[in-house]
């Protein structure tokens, strides 16, 4: 089984769901972020995810720890993809198991919101007429 906090070229939703599903828990919420084929009206050809991996893993672990402190959840798994990704491919999968569903939803949303603010991973979008590092400039 892969680690709860994991960064790789290829990630897999089924791996994550299988790992988090146990008869003790009644509720699992899963967030799946995929590469969109368009953004702000422009066709996206592909993405490139660059990653400062040791720090990204630490920041992802901090999110998992904080989620467990703040919400009544049992387990959380965060997997993020790196490298070249095409529309429809997975970018991130976050799964949260809890006894009660409200905590699972809240923790999962907290985790993806925080990941987008703190984890050192950068997305470059490739269009037909060029490329851009997302969010770099105002």
């Amino acid at each position: 089984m892969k680690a709860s906090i994991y960064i790789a070229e290829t990630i897999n939703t089924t791996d994550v769901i299988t790992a988090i599903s146990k008869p003790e828990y009644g509720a699992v919420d899963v967030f799946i972020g995929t590469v969109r084929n368009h953004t702000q009206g422009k066709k996206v050809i592909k993405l490139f995810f660059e990653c400062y991996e040791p720090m990204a893993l630490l920041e992802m672990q901090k999110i998992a720890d904080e989620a467990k402190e703040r919400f009544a959840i049992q387990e959380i798994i965060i997997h993020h993809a790196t490298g070249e990704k095409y529309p429809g491919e997975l970018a991130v999968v976050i799964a949260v198991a809890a006894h009660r569903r409200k905590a699972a939803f809240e923790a999962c949303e907290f985790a993806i919101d925080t990941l987008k603010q703190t984890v050192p991973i950068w997305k470059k979008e490739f269009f037909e007429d060029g490329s851009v590092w997302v969010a770099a400039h105002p």
Partner: protein
Amino acid sequence: MSHTILLFGITKDIIGGSVHETGNAFTTVGELRRHLYNIYPQLEKLNSLMIAVNNNYANDDDRLQSSDEIALIPPVSGG
């Protein structure tokens, strides 16, 4: 003495390459930041520029050691 700065995302494009050697030593994160803004003014136009020391986000008044692993963290966009 010098610091080796790891570069990521758009800072690679602005500075060129995946590492930057400062040439001299800086006492604090803030001093290093001002040095970089002087040589690469485009860094100041980013939405934000964090500096990580030993895999943790640092403040400008944090002190630097020559053995520290330092990295420039432009606005992140994972997920």
